[in-house]
């Protein structure tokens, strides 16, 4: 292959005009309160913070910051609801409430998609086609479990735990809320949920849905705020269970905070997944899988395929095709229906990513970025590759949580596998080969909780998700996701 003579040009005469999703049907209030005991209430200390649209740095709304007292109030409401309504309700009726949530989410899907994109910066295509439908599907899936729990764990009696404290990240705000709330409610628990401080709006909109669906007051409580709000929830003595999705560092501190208590916990933490391409793979689909693996949601994905391991004999071909493919990725206004890569969620996250870009180059890596033009306001990062890096480099070892792919080559299956497993993380992995026997050898040997073979970054409510090693413990989704919210005896 001679790249200089046969180069494809994607800067075509025919360009797509802007195709912005309409926002005229969207209502965002100027100020949002805490959702406690079925009502929106002001925070005791009167503190608020701004939620920013990362694509244009405009303030979308002022959002209440819950202090310790507010968290205590929410836990009290959840406890009361647990004791007086939710735990005494017939399981089938419990399920019907959850079905209602699913249905209303479906009805209001476009509104949620738009707000998700405004608040978090992800492309409207993803919030519209992935986040919101999956969130609704998650409620729909777990609703059906509510009156069938005795079939899930053979030989065991099941019982709800009580009050679950749930802390979710900013990368899939509504979807993570659904992943947390749906199984908790189905299993008969009540909930205090803390959304991430940069993306609180869809959770607060979900509060409206939950209220409108007629759930008994206090069954779901939503307390917005930053890390201190989360810490207050973790430290609250009347919480039976903490479910956390976020960084391994915070997960570790939660595990420590809960030491000496009987509070149960599940953790869904970071990752540095290897996406392994063998020479006999369907290369074009593999390239697409690489793109979905690392550029989906700006790379703000804990299970992102952030390490590409490509067999040496096809490395040039794969990298060349990847670079061509990156040229057709549209970076920009998340509200444009054609945007593939939206805004980086926050200035802090952008700074962290840019740090890693500097580190990667300082470590001797060769950086390549697509030629996409970036908007002048907002937080952006071009899709980025690092070649010439090795296991010892920080961009290979550490979770960047951005659209940055570290590429290494390998020669034999064993070498690829060794490199894939040479990490303290174990959330996900990818394998690409046309040979069935090799798929099973690899998918069994990769030490991670979700393995995508000849595909990547697929999610489904029926499919359990969660990590090995420092990527966390417990599963979300599917039958296995019930375990986190039940006492088995």
């Amino acid at each position, binding site marked *: 292959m001679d790249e200089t003579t046969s180069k494809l040009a994607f800067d075509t005469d025919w360009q797509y005009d802007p195709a912005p999703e309409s926002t005229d049907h969207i209502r965002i209030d100027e100020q949002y309160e805490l959702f406690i005991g079925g009502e929106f209430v002001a925070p005791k200390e009167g503190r608020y913070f701004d939620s920013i649209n990362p694509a244009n740095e405009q303030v979308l709304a002022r959002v209440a910051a819950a202090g310790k007292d507010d968290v205590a109030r929410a836990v009290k409401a959840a406890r009361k609801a647990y004791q007086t309504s939710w735990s005494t309700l017939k399981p089938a009726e419990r399920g019907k409430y959850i079905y209602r949530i699913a249905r209303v989410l479906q009805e209001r899907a476009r509104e949620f998609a738009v707000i998700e994109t405004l608040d978090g910066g992800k492309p409207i295509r993803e919030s519209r086609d992935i986040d919101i439908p999956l969130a609704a599907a998650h409620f729909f899936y777990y609703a059906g479990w509510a009156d069938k729990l005795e079939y899930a764990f053979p030989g065991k009696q099941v019982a709800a735990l009580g009050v679950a404290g749930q802390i979710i990240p900013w990368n899939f705000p509504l979807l993570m809320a659904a992943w947390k709330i749906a199984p908790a409610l189905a299993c008969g628990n009540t909930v205090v949920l803390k959304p991430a401080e940069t993306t609180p709006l869809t959770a607060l909109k979900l509060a409206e849905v939950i209220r409108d669906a007629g759930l008994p007051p206090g069954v779901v409580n939503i307390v917005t705020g930053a890390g201190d709000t989360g810490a207050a929830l973790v430290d609250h003595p009347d919480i039976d269970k903490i479910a956390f999705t976020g960084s391994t560092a915070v997960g570790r501190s939660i595990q420590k905070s809960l030491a000496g208590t009987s509070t149960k916990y599940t953790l869904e933490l970071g990752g540095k997944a290897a996406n392994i391409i063998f020479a006999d793979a369907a290369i074009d689909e593999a390239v697409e899988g690489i793109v979905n693996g690392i550029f989906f949601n700006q790379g703000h994905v804990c299970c992102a395929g952030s390490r590409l391991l490509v067999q040496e004999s096809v490395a040039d071909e794969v990298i060349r095709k990847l670079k061509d493919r990156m040229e057709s990725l549209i970076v920009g206004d998340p509200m444009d229906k054609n945007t593939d890569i939206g805004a980086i969620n926050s200035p802090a996250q952008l700074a962290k990513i840019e740090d890693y870009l500097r580190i990667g180059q300082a470590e001797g890596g060769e950086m390549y970025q697509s030629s996409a033009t970036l908007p002048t306001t907002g937080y952006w990062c071009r899709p980025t590759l690092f070649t010439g890096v090795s296991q010892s480099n920080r961009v290979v070892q550490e979770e960047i949580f951005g659209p940055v792919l570290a590429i290494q080559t390998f020669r034999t299956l064993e070498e690829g596998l060794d490199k894939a497993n040479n990490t*303290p993380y174990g959330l996900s992995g990818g394998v690409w080969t046309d040979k069935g026997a090799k798929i099973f050898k690899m998918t069994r040997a990769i030490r991670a909780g*979700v393995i995508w073979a000849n*595909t990547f970054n697929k999610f489904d409510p029926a499919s359990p998700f969660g990590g090995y090693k420092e990527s966390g*413990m417990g599963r979300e989704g*599917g039958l*296995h996701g019930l375990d986190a919210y039940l006492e088995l005896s």
Partner: protein
Amino acid sequence: MADLKDKNTRLAVGKTYKLYIDGKFPRTESGRYYPLHNKDEIIANVCLGSRKDTREAVVAARKAFAGWSGTSAYLRGQILYRIAEMLEGRSEQFVAELVKQGLTKAKARTEVAVSIDRLVYYAGWTDKFQQVFSSVNPVSSAHFNFTVPEPTGVVTIIAPEESGLLGLVSNIAAAIAGGNTCVALASYSMPLSAISFTEVLHAADVPAGVVNVLTGSRAELTEQFAAHMDVNAIVYCDGDAAVDREIQLHAANNIKRVVRRTGIDWSTEKGQGPYFIRDTQEFKTTWHPVGG
């Protein structure tokens, strides 16, 4: 010592109780010991295992993990069954040893019998628990999707203090039935059967490093059992709140799974079950496209 009491018979040969690490029986590298008493009598000098012994044991367990987890479930069942056979054959020795450590003869007999049966029980689970806990997941896209349990890796076990043989056997059996390798800390007050049990393991062709057993001080070794970065899970059976907290704090350093098994009467059916295996399993979900 105790065996030398009866002066009318030949001089009995006493037994030296050592550690079991990587399929070998070394003395503790520290050279330390603690005397084990039965009333006023010293019945054995037991190794006071060290942090370094723990490290050696974890290294051995890690080295053995790939092989043991890759062994067929059927063969793991055969080996567990073989352990039961060997223990049955030596049951009188174990009864005598338990009596020496303070149990009544009747209780000792029961403990040995239940231990044997427990091994048989888990031998039968090795190729079945996966079927109970697996699932094929009906995802909406054109993919085949399934979830299976896999062993979590190296498991440290702080075995029940009050149940010298059965408690140890129950916890080791559940861990290795699931394909994990383990490092167990024997009961401090009843360590002899634990060490004798490792001889049974050895005779039953359990591969080196799959089970490692240390004797020694809980206060001294718990930290390493909980903190070692190459340990994936810790099983704690004593229920001491302060120790439990210490374990959690150390475990958090590498997001170690902490399994608490307190208040369990190991001699009953409550002391066994596939969920004991599941405690040290990870669930792996695999996706693959369906197409032509």
